């Protein structure tokens, strides 16, 4: 059997869709399925161009949902639509809104969810890959009964690849009112930052508890700036309040796959490594020669961040 019909939640971002949504549409197309994207927001036409470029033939668009948190209403609408159509699966980005939609829809349809998926296989049936224990093992799973099953996929699991300049055919769908009292967004706060976004940067320099104190994170920022990259962090220093959560790399933070990842004073806990082990080249600076981060590093320096980083910054400044 090959996969014939997949739906993908294409989460709006700006006037288009998020990069994870593009990755999922690309992969659904590569699996040979006819792809239906489901999206919402004020920009139907540019979203149709975006989902079409990555391989969706059809866009079911719910229109502008205003200030309501999208989870309930998108799930309720999908539940209505899925009464009449039965794709093998619905692929959902593992974002905050994506996870809200998956949980709601699962309970509405009484359908199972497979989550933390990083790979798909079209065998006798559609199979999902789940890394466990920090990626040491991969669990392969599938739904017991016919679909639609819900599959929540982690960011950066697939390559986003525009395949055509086709625009998806838009079908306007009126949102099914959800019976649940709505959760409303009252205000949005965006942190200012300069330089490339963490998840898109080609170089990421991350700091961990080994930096010793919050002020030393400036070295990480400076090194990132010199390499035209973005600064990242382990959860230990996010929890300690040194840097905002938006910097966190790992299982409960962002997944990054830069050309170069430099880990400064990070031990290499499994939950950190799942978020960065896909980087092309990994460099680690840690004073403990047995730190687990060295086991996945291409180049390691056993040393103190307080001597190595200032020297590295000085050397790079001489060149720029």
């Amino acid at each position: 059997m090959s996969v014939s019909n997949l739906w993908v939640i294409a989460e709006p971002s700006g006037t288009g869709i998020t990069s994870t949504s593009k990755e999922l549409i690309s992969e659904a197309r590569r699996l040979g399925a006819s792809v239906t994207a489901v999206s919402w927001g004020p920009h139907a036409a540019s979203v149709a161009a975006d989902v079409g470029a990555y391989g969706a033939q059809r866009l079911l668009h719910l229109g502008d949902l205003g200030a309501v948190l999208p989870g309930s209403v998108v799930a309720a609408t999908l539940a209505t639509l899925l009464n009449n159509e039965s794709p093998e699966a619905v692929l959902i980005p593992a974002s905050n809104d994506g996870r809200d939609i998956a949980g709601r829809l699962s309970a509405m349809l009484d359908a199972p969810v497979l989550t933390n998926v990083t790979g798909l296989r079209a065998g006798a049936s559609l199979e999902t890959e789940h890394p466990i224990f920090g990626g040491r093992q991969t669990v392969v799973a599938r739904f017991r009964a016919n679909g639609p099953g819900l599959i929540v996929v982690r960011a950066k699991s697939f390559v986003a690849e525009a395949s055509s300049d086709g625009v998806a055919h838009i079908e306007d769908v009126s949102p099914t009112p959800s019976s649940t009292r709505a959760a409303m967004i009252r205000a949005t706060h965006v942190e200012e930052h300069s330089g490339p976004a963490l998840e898109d940067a080609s170089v990421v320099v991350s700091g961990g508890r080994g930096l010793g104190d919050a002020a030393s994170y400036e070295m990480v920022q400076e090194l990132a700036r010199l390499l035209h990259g973005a600064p990242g962090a382990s959860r230990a220093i996010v929890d300690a309040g040194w840097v905002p959560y938006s910097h966190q790399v790992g299982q409960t933070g962002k997944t990054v796959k830069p050309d170069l990842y430099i880990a400064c004073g990070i031990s290499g806990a499994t939950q950190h490594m799942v978020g960065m082990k896909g980087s092309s080249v990994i460099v680690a600076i840690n004073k403990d020669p047995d730190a687990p981060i060295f086991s996945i590093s291409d180049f390691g320096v056993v040393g103190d961040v307080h001597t190595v980083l200032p020297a590295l910054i000085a050397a790079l400044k001489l060149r720029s």
Partner: protein
Amino acid sequence: MNVVVCVKQIPDPAAPQSLDSEHRLDRSGKLILDEADTYGVEVALQLVEARGEGEVSLVSMGDATDVTGIRSALAMGALRATVVSDPLLRGADALTTAKVLAAAISREMPDLILCATESSDGYTGTLPVQLAQLLDWPALTFATSVVVEGDTVVVHRQTEDGFDEVGAQLPVVVTVTAGVVEPRYATFKGIMAAKSRPVNVVGIADLALDIAALDPRQDIVAVETAATKSAGEKYVDDGEGAARIVAFLEQIKIVSGGAS
């Protein structure tokens, strides 16, 4: 205001983990309270303290042979716990777990349910919203702060690049991220008090749940050993560490060579 916190006992994440012969997480060793849940307990206690009325109780599903982990949450200040434990629930998936917790919580009718955004063992991160839908309640997810103003809950909901302020009317399910508050340490008095607080262990029959509806709907086909990356060069810094990194970055063409 009555708050239920969903808490879970899990194998110690710091200990080596493995799957059993049925591809399930080996839970045969000692179980501890999931650290992720201590934040929910702390937030619940603070909200009830701020209100000046109400109580915090716990609901859990899992093996109840040893409830030391549950007692450690009681020692923080929760007043009682319900643990649903039944051999038929071994290997339950997230939706099944949500159905069981919904049935257990329906008997309490709280104003607010707190969960962690994801557990530390299964970390599907789907259960709280499934639970909200089964109860037909709103869910405010990924909260980094929670306040109750009258009958409305307002949270700061984490986003990719900051946070949104999101509100909904009680009753509500809220999921809190780790690290949002400093969970209190149990005092000696708390630990002593926890010993006599009720831990009510119930089975599926007590909750009048349909067993057929609890069957997991997914199978593990295989467990494979993932390809591992092998470690590269490693230098002990002798004063040349930074220069070696620069040379390496030149080699991989991240910085251009010789421009000094």
